[in-house]
């Protein structure tokens, strides 16, 4: 009986002690977070420490702005240490972690704060060309970043600076949503605007914005010509006044101006030019017959000029026609200009040939040394009676019943 009691006692002791051991084991595997910091500055070495007395090395799951990874532990002085990898500790944002342990699934998060430091001023500006007048604007967007390529903290001061003509301005803006931006409005004048920005002592490079003149206002035109004869040879040059916008800025070079010329027959001739320093010029050859021109210029759908009139005087009053070689050679001339000089080469002469009152052919030639000669070949124009009409410089002469043979 005694023996039995002893056995029971011993057995009970073993049972109790085993429980105690089990409990001790449990307390040993109890892992607790030792690190208390939840805010770190970016770039700082971050180590998460956990208490652990066993050689149990769980993994740590870790996730930041760009990705996730698993970190293995090192054990130092009975603490589990997880070194957050450099690629995570150098990016700002919230990092959440979870300890991969069956019984102690600890989790948490810490935040990596940006540094109050600027290394680069990433500057974007656009549109690169705006209109003068004070309504149009360009936008400066700055993304200041630190040396680890992180955006700087919210509300970091950025100075947006710009120079235009005599004025140099600087305005304080603050980062929000990782960027800082400012709308820069044009002034009345056109010209080049230089823009830069600065934050925490770091300056951006210089950016240029072209402030172009606004749309042109109405303008006047003038014409210049060597003489007022309709010789079909000289050139009349049209030019505009200096075209300006409503703020008195000269319009951009290359503004396209179209000159519309309406003649006596209500036909429209058109010539164009582009501006240089606000003045556009365009040329038109003189007519070869007396005519009245009415000219108006337009910058398409924006502005127009006054109308001017030009009168061209007839130079050839009359011309002679000679029929030779069985009437098969027709010589027109001399064609003489206003001082009885031979007309410069190139005057159009038109010959209409009629047979039995039917127009059978039209021949055109240009003058050479004051004369034009038509040769009617027997193979084409068979023997018979023909009517001819000859016109040049707005004059027409008719010759009826000329017999070719």
């Amino acid at each position, binding site marked *: 009986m005694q023996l039995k009691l002893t056995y029971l006692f011993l057995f009970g002791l073993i049972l109790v002690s085993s429980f105690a051991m089990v409990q001790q084991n449990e307390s040993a595997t109890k892992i607790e977070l030792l690190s208390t910091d939840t805010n770190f500055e970016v770039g700082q070495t971050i180590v998460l420490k956990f208490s652990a007395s066993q050689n149990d090395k769980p993994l740590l799951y870790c*996730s930041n702005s760009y990705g*996730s990874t698993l970190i293995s532990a090192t054990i130092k002085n009975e603490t589990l240490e997880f070194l957050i990898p450099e690629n995570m500790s150098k990016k700002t944002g*919230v990092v*959440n972690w979870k300890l991969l342990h069956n019984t102690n699934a600890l989790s948490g*998060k810490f935040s990596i704060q940006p540094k109050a430091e600027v290394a680069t001023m990433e500057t*974007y500006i656009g549109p690169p060309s705006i209109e003068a007048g004070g309504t149009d604007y360009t*936008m400066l967007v700055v993304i200041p970043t630190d040396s680890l390529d992180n955006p700087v903290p919210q509300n970091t001061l950025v100075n947006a600076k710009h120079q235009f003509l005599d004025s140099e301005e600087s305005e304080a803006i603050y980062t929000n*949503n*990782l960027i800082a931006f400012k*709308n820069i409005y044009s002034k009345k004048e056109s010209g080049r605007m230089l823009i830069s920005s600065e934050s925490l002592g770091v300056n951006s490079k210089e950016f240029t914005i072209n402030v172009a003149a606004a749309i042109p206002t109405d303008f006047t035109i003038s014409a210049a010509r060597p003489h007022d004869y309709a010789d079909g040879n000289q050139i009349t040059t049209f030019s505009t006044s200096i075209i300006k916008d409503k703020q008195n800025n000269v319009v951009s070079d290359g503004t396209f101006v179209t000159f519309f010329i309406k003649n006596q027959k209500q036909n429209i001739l058109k010539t164009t030019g582009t501006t240089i320093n606000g003045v556009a010029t365009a040329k038109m050859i003189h007519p070869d017959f007396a005519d009245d021109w009415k000219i108006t210029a337009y910058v398409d759908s924006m502005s127009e000029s006054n109308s001017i009139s030009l009168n061209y005087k007839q130079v050839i009053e009359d011309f002679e026609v000679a029929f030779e070689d069985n009437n098969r050679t027709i010589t027109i001339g001399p064609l003489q200009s206003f001082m009885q000089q031979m007309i410069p080469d190139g005057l159009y002469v038109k010959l209409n040939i009629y047979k039995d009152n039917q127009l059978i052919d039209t021949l055109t030639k240009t003058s050479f040394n004051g004369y034009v000669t038509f040769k009617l070949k027997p193979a084409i124009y068979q023997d018979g009676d023909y009517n001819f009409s000859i016109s040049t410089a707005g004059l027409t002469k008719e010759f009826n019943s000329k017999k070719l043979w």
Partner: protein
Amino acid sequence: MVGPNRNILRTILIASYIMIVALIIYGVSAVFSYLNTGADRSTMLHTEIQKIEQYLPKVEWEPIQNEGRSIDDQTLNTIQSNYLDAWYVKQIAYNTNKTAGIKDYYTDSARENLYSFIELNKAENTTIEATTLRHNPTLEFFSEDGQLAVITDRNVIEYKRIFKADSLVLEIKETSSYKIVFLLEDGFWRIRHMVKELTEPTNDNPKIVSVDSLNIKGINYYPQANPWDMFGDAFSTDIISKDFKIIKDAGLNSVRLFVQYDDFGKEHVHTEKLKKLKQTLDVAEAYNLGVVLTLFDFYGDYSVMSWTLNQRHAETIVDAVKDHNALLAWDIKNEPNLDFESRGKENVIAWLDNMIDLVKSVDDTHPVTIGWSNTQSATILKDKVDFVSFHYYEDLEDLDEAIKSMKNDIPDKPLVLQEFGLSSYSGFWKPFGASDEDQANYHKKIQEHIATHGLQFMSWTLYDFTEIPTEVVGKLPWRKNAQKHFGFIDKNGAKKASFKYISN
């Protein structure tokens, strides 16, 4: 006597000669015409660029009230599309630890951050399978020149599975907020900065739907002429109406119908299929029958990268019919436990888990269940489903025990015996199969079990079928033929002996 024989011989010789020549000519011409086919000439112009949808998480933009220039829809769509692509290439990159595609969607300096993760994870043999299920972006800023945008994407639900040396070590779902700066470079809206501002584990506490009024006495239904192709060309409301009348007259109150994933158009659900589905529900309503709608039939890819596509499919269908009076419950998937082996149990369960959340986020009034193929799987996700469904085709003697064990494990949720039946096929492929009497007997017995345990039930099935698609039970003729004879009504329309026991 010799003449005719010789003539026959000659005829045969000449005929076979002609045959051989014809065959050779046919063969040569087939080869020739094959070699002459090439790419369609119109493809030279590259006129059609087909965008394949690969990543379609739910994106809900906050009202547009951004600073800077006002944005047009097209630009916003481009930003969204590029942003999702950026997530997609990132998920692929972390899954494979390869950098393909990243440079299209991240600027020079931003991509370094991803490369460093890939390098680290590659060295540590860590891979991450991840997807995002929901985005809730706000456009904060759009620059005047249209080259820079900032968005804050709040409540991004990220699902991740972390593998170490190819074994799953962690499954995690996080809700995070990101602030993102985009630059328009080379026609891509590329991510320049991305800062995670908030993050916490996702709490999915979908509303538990009351199932007190649920009293399913139903049947799995396919039309007799076109089983497993109910919403195809042979769809006819007349036939369905006739069948539903039979079902109603037999004393049943519900039917289980199947929506097939491919048939309904995958992530872009065909409207004509939805129309047919609604017509079917209209008919059910007319006969006062409830409908348990089984989604994702004939679907077997549970990979994380396809989740967003699957969810768009489910979302469209659920949203389209959630207000229909005939709708009784959602069955997420038919017999998903059969895919455990081929697709991985964790994959399938995680897919189901998240799909339940999705369905409940769209429709929080109808109960949700999963049609487990056996009683052993029925406890999986028992806390997520509103009632537990299981199928039983095993020996009736073991049913009692199985139900008791299930009731023990799942004391608080109704059990629905969602499929059961016996094939009355007995013929060439299965000489000692059950007869019509055996089938009737089976149904009589099982109805007794159902009554004893107070189960709800849906039997398999109304009709004997003449055609079984290969996808259902495979090609083996003994399986196919057995599957043809589970009905209460034979192929000629005559009620079998079992019809008497169609309901209790």
